[in-house]
């Protein structure tokens, strides 16, 4: 795969998962607030589980995609230093994909965490009684 494409995939892996979690976190909180709030419920009549299930599912999917990108890039750039290593051969002049390798490794870890958060959010959503005061 070309270096440019790897670079793009690396950013996808690093950013998309984070973005997906951020959006679903805020959206999910907003939905539960809207539904479990007298006024909100009266205005929107939306079924909390349906909405929460959808947004959380979509977000989980995005995180998985990001993770796949990250793993691919990590695998394609294996054998390179992360950059904390000693100066590389021919470092002057042409550049080696150490940065891509570094960020893809980071992305593999971070997406795993984001995925776990979303899983727990799904469990918490459907393991509890909707709109019961905690």
């Amino acid at each position, binding site marked *: 795969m070309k270096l440019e494409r790897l670079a793009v995939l690396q950013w996808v892996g690093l950013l998309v998962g984070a973005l997906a979690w951020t959006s679903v976190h805020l959206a999910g909180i907003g939905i539960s607030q809207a539904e479990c709030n007298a006024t909100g419920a009266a205005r929107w009549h939306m079924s909390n589980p349906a909405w929460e299930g959808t947004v959380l599912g979509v977000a989980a999917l995005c995180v998985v995609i990001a993770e796949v990108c990250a793993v691919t890039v990590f695998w394609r750039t294996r054998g390179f230093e992360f950059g904390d290593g000693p100066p590389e051969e021919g470092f002057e002049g042409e550049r080696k994909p150490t940065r891509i390798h570094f960020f893809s490794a980071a992305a593999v870890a971070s997406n*795993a965490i984001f995925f776990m958060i979303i899983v727990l959010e799904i469990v918490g959503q459907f393991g509890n009684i909707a709109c019961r005061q*905690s």
Partner: protein
Amino acid sequence: MTPPLRFRRWLPLLGLGVVLVLTGCDRQQDTLAPKSHASTDIANLFWWMMGVSWFGLALVVALMIFAWRKAHRRPGHEVKEGEQLGFRVVIGAGIVFPIVLIAALFVIGDIFVIKVTQAPAKDATRMTIVVTGHQWWWEVRYPGTTAVTANEIHIPVRTPVRLEVKTADVIHSFWVPELNRTIDAMPGKRNAIELYADAVGRYRGQCDEFCGLQHAHMGFYVYADPPTVFRRWLANQEKPARTPGGGLAAQGKQAFMTSSCASCHTIRGTSASGYVGPDLTHVATRSTLAALTIPNDRRDLSHWIVDSQAVKPGNQMPNMHLSGDKVKALVAYLEGLN
């Protein structure tokens, strides 16, 4: 969750001070001396979490001690040596292991235990009590009856009670550690928890959210009575105040109704119907005054009437400059209100 008795025996050894928590003498607000199923679950949850936590701490300390010993055994190393081992440990012990443990904790705590501690369903209990936080005392009402009291809540033992909490001014927080978790009294909202006591007795509670100058003096008692005793108590609380036969107490009533007392306090069955201070209809049945600040006896009561600001600085009751015999009369009257 099952109460792990083994833990109670050997976990304290890991935490020096924690021993004292268990062998307590006069601990009236001990979260870990549960007297209801809700607080029992919370306490057990804590014991398990603490046990695992000590192991985590021990592991990290062991690693550091090992590093220190190793450096002494064979100093010097090749800079990138053991990088793979480092990565493996970080991924295993730093990512996989904690994720599993904490996910399990999340499921236990926020799926199962929370079912017990969250608000009871509207129709789950036969009885409801409404508690209103004031700066700095608690107003207690029994919906469906005329009973109103302050700072001393009576409930029937081994009977789930729905307790609804609201506030008349700032945010307060209702908390009886031995019976259940904390619940805030939020403006414009009515929160609820279940109040349940395994055993007959007196349980101490306190305002848990900073609510101003006298946040420190906003305690209350929950009395779990046998059902018959409770019913008798409630029936008595419903009655209007008894009118004194005469003598000093009658003068006291006179003084109460004519002075500014009546504009702040309610005494059912009289013209006094203020809402600033506690309802005094049956004040003599309470064991304490000023939200557990002082005992309810003649000396403290008269001291309170004469100079409440010295007892509880900043409280809402002004010092009204009454003559000595007027105070005597008031005390005699109030002591008769049982």
